């Protein structure tokens, strides 16, 4: 009887009904909050003016961290190193990976399926394994004293390569070669066919692969740390600084990175919507 009456009350209670009807929305908002809280904290902390050694408490608002960006000792050097490595690793792995993807999709050769499989392995292997085996390789090849910028770069190109191949390959595989045949039929020689038809159509895949490479390289800690020698990249700097208390400027870098990602995503979405609207 009581349950029945409670149910009747529930049914008539507008508040409960509202919750029932908007349950999905409410859960969605909760998940979003859960996802974005760390980012919100980073943005907030970039304006923190710590009053004590406890840098993890918001004590007051300041723009100092933004205006005195390179104030944290060694951070800008590390950041610049990471950006340099990121750009070079992205360029090298994107070019090599795109060429490899073309070969894997467009040409029949012996061991093609084996190559396809091998390309996947670095993605599947744990980073700690890749990192330590690379270190072993460098040391046994006699580069023990020269660990640093170049060994990091070589390592990054290696693990970015797989992701580029996989991304570009899926784009290429979804593209029939009829368009290239049509170009050839319309007097385009192989070079013109590539630059006027193939490349523009594969470009979104290549761009995606490049962005992915950069963030993988910029982000990497484990492999980098093992092969860095005395060089310090940004993730290594943050790791080291965290022992004493992360300087506030790290939050500025985090905020900037987040802003750039948002810009890219929003830009892509707007571009996509414009195209969809044009199609309507």
């Amino acid at each position, binding site marked *: 009887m009581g349950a029945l009456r409670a149910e009747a009350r529930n049914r008539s209670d507008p508040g409960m009904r509202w919750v029932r009807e908007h349950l999905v929305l409410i859960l969605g908002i909760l998940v979003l909050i859960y996802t974005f809280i760390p980012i919100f904290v980073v943005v907030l902390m970039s304006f923190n003016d710590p009053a004590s050694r406890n840098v993890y408490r918001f004590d007051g608002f300041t723009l100092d961290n933004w205006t005195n960006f390179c104030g944290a000792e060694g951070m800008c050097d590390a950041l610049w190193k990471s950006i340099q490595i990121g750009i070079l690793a992205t360029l090298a792995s994107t070019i090599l990976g795109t060429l490899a993807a073309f070969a894997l999709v467009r040409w029949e050769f012996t061991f093609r399926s084996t190559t396809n499989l091998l390309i996947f392995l670095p993605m599947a292997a744990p980073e700690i394994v890749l990192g330590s085996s690379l270190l072993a390789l460098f040391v046994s090849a006699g580069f023990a004293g020269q660990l640093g910028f170049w060994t990091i770069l070589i390592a990054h190109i290696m693990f970015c390569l797989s992701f580029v191949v996989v991304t570009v390959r899926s784009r290429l595989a979804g593209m029939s070669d*009829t*368009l290239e*045949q*049509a*170009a*050839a*039929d*319309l*007097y*385009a*020689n192989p070079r*013109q066919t590539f630059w*006027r*038809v193939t490349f*523009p*159509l594969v470009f979104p895949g290549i761009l995606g692969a490049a962005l992915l490479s950069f963030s993988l390289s910029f982000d990497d800690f484990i492999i980098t740390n093992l092969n860095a020698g005395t060089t310090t990249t940004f993730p290594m700097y943050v790791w080291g600084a965290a022992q004493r208390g992360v300087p506030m400027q790290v939050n500025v870098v985090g905020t900037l990175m987040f802003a750039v990602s948002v810009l890219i995503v929003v830009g892509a979405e707007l571009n996509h919507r414009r195209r969809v609207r*044009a*199609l309507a």
Partner: protein
Amino acid sequence: MSQVAETASPPAGDTTYDGLRLRGVTKSFGAFTAVRDLDLDVPRGSFFALLGPSGCGKTTTLRMVAGLETPTSGSITLAGDDITYAKPYRRPVNTVFQNYALFPHLDIHENIAFGLKRRKVADVDTRVREMLDLVELETQARKRPAQLSGGQQQRVALARALINEPEVLLLDEPLGALDLKLRRAMQIELKRIQTEVGLTFVHVTHDQEEAMTMADTVAVMNRGVIEQMGAPEELYENPHTTFVANFLGQSNLVEGAIKGRGGDVVTVDMHGIDVSIPAARSHAAGDRGWIGIRPEKVLIGDPGEDLDAPGNSIPGGVVTDVSFVGVSTQYLVRMPWGQELQVFQQNTGHRRLYRTGEAVELSWRPEYAFLLDISQDASAGAEQED
């Protein structure tokens, strides 16, 4: 038959021939021979149709002319030039692809201008506008292909090929993706454009009606060889093989024993009834053959009735099925020898309709019948896919 590469290919010969000429062209993919020792002449300025079921080698033939496939053996000449091994971008040939293959990242104007720009022709914009005008798409110039309907995309594909004024325009099932009504409209449109620009069109299709409406010459292809080639009415009225008889329209094929070949007629004993067939329409060797007659050429009447075909009455039929389709009535008539023949009767209003189970007599004029070789499969080409 996997190694046909050694087929002696006769020389392309006469270099003054100004049309498209294929001589002894064979194309094998591994053990499969798609096209077998094909000889073909397409006169300049003609509308030529390659008709056949899917997998008969018609598209492969087209792709060899376009340069997208290389023949295993044989030669292809165009206006006297040997283009057998020329790169696709070096031949004066353009293609309208089956799925149009429009460049999705370029707008309509750029798509149509593509060929001219590659050849660095002057005045591209003016000519593109003229071409857009021809295919009635002036207002769509700045849209992307995906924004157009199927019929419009089809016209863009046509314009993109035509603008280059190729020696030969190849059309690979260009209307296959369109619905029936649009397809009929585009057939007339294509024919109009061909007459207007006067180029050679080679049109590949599996739709016999499409081939017959549009083309001056139709080549019927089956299993990599051309079964018969000629004007549509000639192919229809006087088929040389059972495949052509069944693939182009429908045919009744009745087995008969050849009794005599005298003068310009062949006399055949068809289950006890003597029928005569003009010698020019007899394509049977040996002493037996398939007597062929189109269903609309068969007359149906009451037993003993005097039908319009003196001396050729075939008695003893019983109507087993009647389908009224408006313009005509289609009967199935079981003959004394057990075979069911198809009869189409125009609904002129002068003849009464027959009902299932009625006894009837059939008749046809001897000049409409044809005689085919008994060694051929009577059902070849009868099951069309579309």
